[in-house]
């Protein structure tokens, strides 16, 4: 088999943080090459380098495609050579028809006008090719997600595709749709097409891939040939997560008290898709002075769970009981949740956390203006003192508290958001991805702050996609998958392999839940030995 694509020594950094480091990656003609790795391992960045989203010159290394070195300036350059990406979030326009979506970029035309007949006919052919039995003039909004994914593939096929890149193509599909999609990939392979398949679901990967490359922290850890050896999932998992954890987390001796906050039978439905239960009757509790981690993949329902607790800020038809010190509390609005002693530090500080145009002081006091005012009149001196106090305590690096929060670095912005919530003096602090997008030094400072909070008797719930962080900080780790808690580990027994195993096993969507539970027990038992 000849080589279609070779990426040599690719490195790419964002503001000093290395996203990719010396990546070597090849795709052969007529091969399905799977790429696996944790959240943030560099999979998406790799694909963006390949497709020209990050243009030539913004990265180091070289791309050789079809025998020649290529310098893609943008995505059009790579598409012209048959490199087509299908993104995880579908990029279809809901209120246009299937046919219009397929030919959105360059419809067949005559005399400068769209040739509707040709659009219809060619759409029909393409839909037949992907096995989608829908009329081309059906609106995309009227077909399911699985079929939409097929439309995306038909759209890709409408261009001269030689290398198809699929980013988590089955993330939102059910089992039979996923199987159909994978069959389609295999069929295309037999016709000589190459594909890069990015997926979390190791069973799918193992089923169709010819080779598997594991990325970790922006490096290629290993490339395995599926024909040459049988693939061991454990081996892949180990490679995905294995890394040095020492000296990255401050030490702490936990003093854990009585349960403070309990959630029982909590259920949440999607705000738009009425029938979709996003949080499936979960139970959860956190104790005084305890840091509980919630692990899981993106889309597992962790943020949705947290936000639905915090004043019903996400979801519909929220049911279940929330108990504070054994007594049921009303968390139905954000201000009630704050009054009850909850605080939620969002994962998206720019969109949901900060008033970027306003200064540090105004951001810090926003959720608790009452404490710096008397009779609705703000005491600006008191406010300034509070803000300066947090600035010193949290070591927020800013010229003064009147600096606009939008001009601060990510780490300092995070400290401002944390300060805002600490100023409400919460008992239960929910931190959603508290170290996302901030540098290592700032991360360490945030970890120290979290430890101090727990030592001060607060109950901390920490959602994170970075497993080492969970292992380094938390006293207990709950694993969430598809809206339910599927595993729980004590600090002493938790390992990255165990957590990852629970997550990827769940991705198999076993029909028989008992079978699954028993296999999970087997696994954890095995790892203990």
């Amino acid at each position, binding site marked *: 088999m000849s080589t279609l694509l070779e990426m040599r020594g690719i490195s790419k950094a964002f503001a000093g943080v290395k996203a990719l480091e010396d990546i070597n990656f090849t795709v052969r003609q007529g091969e399905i090459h799977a790429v696996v790795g944790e959240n943030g391992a560099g999979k998406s960045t790799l694909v963006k380098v390949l497709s020209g989203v990050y243009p030539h010159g913004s990265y180091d290394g070289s791309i050789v495609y079809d025998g020649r070195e290529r310098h893609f300036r943008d995505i059009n350059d790579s598409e012209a050579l048959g490199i087509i990406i299908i993104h995880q979030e579908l990029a279809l326009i809901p209120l246009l028809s299937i046919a219009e979506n397929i030919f959105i970029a360059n419809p067949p035309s005559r005399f400068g006008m769209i040739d509707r007949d040709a659009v219809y006919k060619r759409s029909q052919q393409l839909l037949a090719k992907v096995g989608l039995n829908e009329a081309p003039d059906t609106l995309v909004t009227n077909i399911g997600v699985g079929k939409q994914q097929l439309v995306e593939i038909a759209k890709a096929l409408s261009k001269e595709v030689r290398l198809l890149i699929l980013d988590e193509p089955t993330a939102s599909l059910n089992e039979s749709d996923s199987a159909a999609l994978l069959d389609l990939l295999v069929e295309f392979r037999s016709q000589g097409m190459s594909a890069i398949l990015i997926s979390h679901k190791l069973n799918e990967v193992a089923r169709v891939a010819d080779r598997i490359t594991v990325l970790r922290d922006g490096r290629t850890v290993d490339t395995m040939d599926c024909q040459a050896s049988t693939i061991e999932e454990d081996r892949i998992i180990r490679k995905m997560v294995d890394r040095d954890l020492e000296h990255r987390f401050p030490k702490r001796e936990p003093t854990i008290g009585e349960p403070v906050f309990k959630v029982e039978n909590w259920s949440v439905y999607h705000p738009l898709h009425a029938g979709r239960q996003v949080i499936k009757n979960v139970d959860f509790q956190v104790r005084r002075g305890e840091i509980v981690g919630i692990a899981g993949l993106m889309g597992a329902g962790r943020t949705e769970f947290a936000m639905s607790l*915090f*004043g019903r*800020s996400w979801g519909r038809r929220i049911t279940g009981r929330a108990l504070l010190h054994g007594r049921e509390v009303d968390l139905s*609005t*954000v*201000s009630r*949740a*704050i009054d009850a002693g909850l605080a*939620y530090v*969002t994962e998206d500080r720019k*969109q*949901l*956390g*900060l*008033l*970027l*145009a*306003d200064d540090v002081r*105004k951001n810090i006091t*926003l*959720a608790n*203006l*009452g404490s710096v*005012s008397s009779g*609705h*009149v*703000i005491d*600006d*001196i008191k406010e*300034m*003192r509070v803000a*300066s106090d947090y600035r*010193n305590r949290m070591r927020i690096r800013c*010229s*003064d508290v*009147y600096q606009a929060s939008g001009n601060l670095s990510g780490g300092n912005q995070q400290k401002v958001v944390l300060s*805002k919530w600490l100023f409400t003096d919460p008992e239960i602090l929910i931190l959603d991805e508290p170290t996302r997008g901030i540098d290592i030094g700032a991360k360490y400072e945030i970890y120290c702050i979290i430890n101090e909070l727990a030592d001060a008797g607060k109950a901390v719930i920490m959602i994170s996609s970075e497993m080492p962080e969970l292992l380094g900080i938390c006293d207990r780790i709950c694993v969430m998958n598809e809206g339910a808690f599927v595993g729980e580990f004590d600090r002493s027994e938790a390992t990255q392999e165990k957590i990852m195993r629970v997550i990827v096993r769940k991705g198999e969507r076993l029909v028989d839940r008992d079978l699954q539970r028993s296999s999970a027990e087997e696994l954890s038992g095995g790892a203990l030995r």
Partner: protein
Amino acid sequence: MSDKTATLPGTREHAGFVKTNLREYGMLLSLFAIMLFFELVTDGTLLRPLNLTNLVLQNSYIVIMALGMLLVIVTGHIDLSVGSVAGFIGAIAAVLMVRYGVHFIPATIACLALGALIGAAQGYWVAYFKIPSFIVTLAGMLVFKGLALAVLQGQSVGPFSPTFQKLSSGFIPELFPGAGTLYPTSLLIGAALALGLVYISVKTRARRASHGVEVEPTSFFALKNAILVGVVIYFTYLIASHRGLPNVLVIMVALIALYGFVTTRTTIGRQIYAVGGNEKAAKLSGIKTERLTFLTFVNMGVLAALAGLVFAARLNTATPKAGLGFELDVIAACFIGGASAYGGVGRVAGAVIGALIMGVMNNGMSILGIGIDYQQVIKGLVLLGAVCLDVYNQRR
């Protein structure tokens, strides 16, 4: 505290301070520049006591509505209906007082309450149903324009009782009637106002300085206050040499002070800015964003009603055409005054200055005999220019 004071750049260069605060004072400087320009080209007509008094009377209702519009724009919305609402309320007032002979106090109260109700009706759809304010208030603009016509049955209704007319064409009573051509009461009030402003700013500065907050350099501060005192006293002198302070000017200044205080010093003001700056973040911080949006529209309705009363009292008649196009002047005043169309940014002082810039330009160009056609062209270009300059300054 002491170590923190050391890190504060208290000894910053004066030039640097002026530069960073230029944007704050830029609007005020352009107002003065425009006034100076028209004062020169009209051979001193602009600042004649009679003309200055007229200038105040002519623009009072725009300034009053700009205060409400500023809050609406700060929350990220717009209200296109204010002109029609003002016209409609004027019509209701005329019908109540002239046709049915209702006393002006209950009639005024009823009109303000009706304004609040109109604001509530529009704000409800915007805040709780999330219908874009542009659409809701565009509908309101048509509805109330039509209702004004219907209420007046297509005719002008007037005149009002002399007491009601005093709302906009009256002057404060003179306590020392024998004092000659100048009105000493008005002068005294002006002087007291100037001294009061200086007292407040000196006290605020001292309080801030004692807590280690950065304050402007002393010389700059003194100069600023000297100019402030000079300007206030000079303008009261000019106005006092005509017929004293107009009633409506007193109302206007009181409202400006009230809204200035509410926007900068109170929790509700802070929360309104938070809603406009980042509604989702505000909501997640426990702020009742819907209720605040609703209240800004109610407030706008009351102020539009007040403006409608002032305008009707000034014309001494309610006409179906009253209020036509006011919304554009009001919105333009806010944007010229530095409010952001994206919400979250804008100051009361800015909106007032914006309204005055528009007013001075209208007045000056009319004195010069420029036709209404080119007046509009020039006003349009000034609006665009002011906003462009603001955007350019922010990018730098």
